[in-house]
């Protein structure tokens, strides 16, 4: 109960007078509060301490039976456990790997960031004047500068570029071995896929499925969604019965496991796949088609010079790991995900990755994005 200070003995009611006195610092304004206290229902003269927690002692003495427990605040946070955390990008990688294992894919040995132009470009039937081989697009090496050797089938590759073969008229230019020996930081993991296919060709035909998720490099302008290095997810299927139709059916099933069921495909161009398709998925939350990745059937010029027999078709598909991760975890700047500028709190507090469930931006209601 708030009371009022009794009136001054000589009252001054004129507001202007008070203002004037205040300005001249002759008076000071004070506010006084007073309380009136009376006995309540639980009034007692002895002190009863409320228990805050259940203790070992209470259990031993049995006092827990009569103990009065203090009301709990269920809106407060618990104490952080001291355990560690896995990185979100690698949690997403784990989900992808599981899907690959479930669908019978073998993981490729991608432990070489340094690659010869031969494996990275020439063996994939990328011509030597292709713009992807420009200094502005690809990191070349100064030390070491060139590969020590090329695989023994390099002349088949030279020939298919220069004169064609395997039903192709080729690119009809003069192929340079020196250019092929230049070392680069691989621009895609397809450089490894071609080595696996070359190995596969050493033994009698069998269907095979390979995958990898590893770093690749681009000497490109760096912005919120692009770094000089990122992770590529790649799958390769070698099968005599492979067609665009079966590749589409596979991609349908693959992406369905990640909660993306509405796919469509757009014709596109890749130097080493023909036919080629971009993969799009309709996003209900955002109300638009999102590009997921790229795919296609590897060109016979590439497959035959790698040694695969006529009739073996190989389909490939690829996407970046960062893009779906940034989407799932609602991260807008790639530096907040990959590299040393990451916020350790972000790693510690982000949810487990369940690609088949809606997360982050995906969970947004339609129209709210």
């Amino acid at each position: 109960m708030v009371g009022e200070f009794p009136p001054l003995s000589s009252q001054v009611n004129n507001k202007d007078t008070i203002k004037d006195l205040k300005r001249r610092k002759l008076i000071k304004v004070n506010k006084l509060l007073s309380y009136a206290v009376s006995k309540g229902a639980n009034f007692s003269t002895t002190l009863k301490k409320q228990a805050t927690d259940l203790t070992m002692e209470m259990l031993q003495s049995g006092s827990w039976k009569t103990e009065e427990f203090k009301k709990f605040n269920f809106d407060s946070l618990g104490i952080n456990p001291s355990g560690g955390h896995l990185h979100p990008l690698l949690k997403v990688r784990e989900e992808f790997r599981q899907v690959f294992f479930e669908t019978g894919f073998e993981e490729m040995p991608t432990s070489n960031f340094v690659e010869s132009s031969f494996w990275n470009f020439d063996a994939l039937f990328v011509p030597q004047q292709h713009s992807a081989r420009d200094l502005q697009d690809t990191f070349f090496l100064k030390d070491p500068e060139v590969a020590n050797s090329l695989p023994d089938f390099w002349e088949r590759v030279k020939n298919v570029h220069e004169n064609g073969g395997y039903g192709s008229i080729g690119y009809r230019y003069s192929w340079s071995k020196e250019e092929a020996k230049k070392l680069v930081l691989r621009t895609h993991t397809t450089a490894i896929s071609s080595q696996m296919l070359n190995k596969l060709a050493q033994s009698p035909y069998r269907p095979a499925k390979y995958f990898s998720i590893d770093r690749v490099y681009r000497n490109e302008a760096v912005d919120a969604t692009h770094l000089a290095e990122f992770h590529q997810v790649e799958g390769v299927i070698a099968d005599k019965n492979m067609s665009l139709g079966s590749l589409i059916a596979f991609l349908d099933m693959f992406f369905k496991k990640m909660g993306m069921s509405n796919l469509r495909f757009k014709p596109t161009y890749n130097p080493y796949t023909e036919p080629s398709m971009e993969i799009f998925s309709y996003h209900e939350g955002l109300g638009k088609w999102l590009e997921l990745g790229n795919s296609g059937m590897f060109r016979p010029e590439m497959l035959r010079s790698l040694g695969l027999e006529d009739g073996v078709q190989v389909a490939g598909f690829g996407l970046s790991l960062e893009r779906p991760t940034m989407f799932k975890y609602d991260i807008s700047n790639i530096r907040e995900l990959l590299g040393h500028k990451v916020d350790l709190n972000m790693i510690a507090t982000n949810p487990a990755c369940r690609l088949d469930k809606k997360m982050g931006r995906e969970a947004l209601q339609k129209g709210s994005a």
Partner: protein
Amino acid sequence: MPTIHVDKEDLFEYLGNQFNTEEFRELCFEFGIELEEDTSEKGELAEGERAQLKIDIPANRYDLLCFEGLTRALGVFLGRESITNYHVAPTSNPHRITVAKECSQVRPLIVGAILRNIKLDAARYKSFIDLQDKLNQNLGHKRELVSIGTHDLDTVQGPFTYEAVKPEDLKFVPLEQTEEMDGHRIMEFYEKDKKIKKFLHIIEKSPVYPVVYDANRTVMSLPPLINSNHSKITLDTKNIFIEITAMDMTKVNMALNILVTMFSVHCKEPFTVEPVEVVYPDGKSFVYPDFETKSITTTAKYLNGIVGIEKSNSEIVELLQKMSLEAKVEQDSIVVKLPLTRPDMLQECDIAEDLAIAFGYNRIPRVQNNEATVGAPLPINKLTDIVRREMAMAGWTEVLTLSLCAHDENFKFLRREDKGDEVVVLANPETLENQICRSLLLPGLLKTVRENKRYPIPIKVFEVSDVVYKDPTTERGARNRRHACALYASDEARFEIIQGLLDTVMESLGVAPYCNKQQGHAYYLVEADLPMYLPGRSAKVMLSDNGNTVELGTIGIIHPEVLFNFELKVPISSFEINIEPFL
């Protein structure tokens, strides 16, 4: 991927006014091009400004790089027009370009053609110039391999010569200039020109520059840099002389054929091109354009097999027609005539793609392939996951740092010396951050602590990733190595804490710490004087496997100077080991 700008109203009118923007976007998607933007959708157009469509064209489709080609291809696709045939006009005495032998020193090849009685207007003129730019840029690899010069034929006098002369011996007024310049002055002058500057390097170092002259010794062009103002094309030009110089015969023919097939539509006799003869110093002569068409023989079985459909020979021929491909059935085969406009087609898989587009990618029946294969993880990745989970369960947080870094971060900042046999060095990095491939994970972890100053101590982070080492014994001269690195940063260095984590990791890999150093599977530390650690507080981590001893890595309290170099103010202890011996 090149982007072209086309007039929306003109395009829609050409296609019979049956589309709105959204429907056209769908058509593009189906056809394999992409409508990037409709300028009328983004805010108001200025008074008198016409709506433009920005369309992304795949890098191999030079035939779609201009309004003329795009409309022709879509017109056929929609069944509104038939496939165009192109002709070389019969000429008994064609214009001639004679090539001097010096050209072989700098830019050996030239081709030519004439577009006779052409009718230009502002839109066609712009389209013509834009297409040349696109071809120079993409097909010509920024003019290095191919560069196009076009001239008003009525301002010059044949026969023409293609020569290579000393820079001081050529003089002309370049396009849109008034000053007469020699080769040296041109180099100096265009050094300040944003666009031309980028091409100077192509001939700059050559003792002779390539020049195209007419019969009166009038300079027509200095390829690949600039044409002369004298022979420039205007809206009134009636006859266009095209010369294209090059380093590559295949590409120069592609460029010429695209240019003349696209623009001969505006000639009085449409789709007919007047030839030009080129005579080389060895007496050999060629007539351009080369309109000899090639054919590809394929079968319905192959095409159906690639696409995953079942169509008869005649149905396939009909579908290919939509893609401007003339095909006919010969016995059991399908013979497809390769159009002059499609130099990207090399073999039957290219036909298969066009068949798939004509059929519709999204109408192809989805059939599961049921070949059983066995999935398997890569052993090194399986091992990595064991170590990662162990460290995370022990309370450390995983980071994922960049594999490229500055040279100093890998050496000088760590008080380490580069003996030249360790790291891979990049030739063309844009920034200091990308000078080398790291050979240690530690710098990335130290930088992570630096960037997380507000995070409460202790900070416990780890990474298990690849580093790169030079290795002259391998095909590529370098190889990756899987490292595990962890650090503890707090108000005290606490060596025993990071050592405890190392013990835990080793135990998870079945390696007992501190057993008999010479026997069994065990790991132990050997004191070592390593410059990146505090003296007396560093050791090598050794693995003993039945008498074989391997050095796994190092452990210690980070040297205060190293902390200082990385702008850190907290004591840190860390270890970094190679986990490959545990494979």
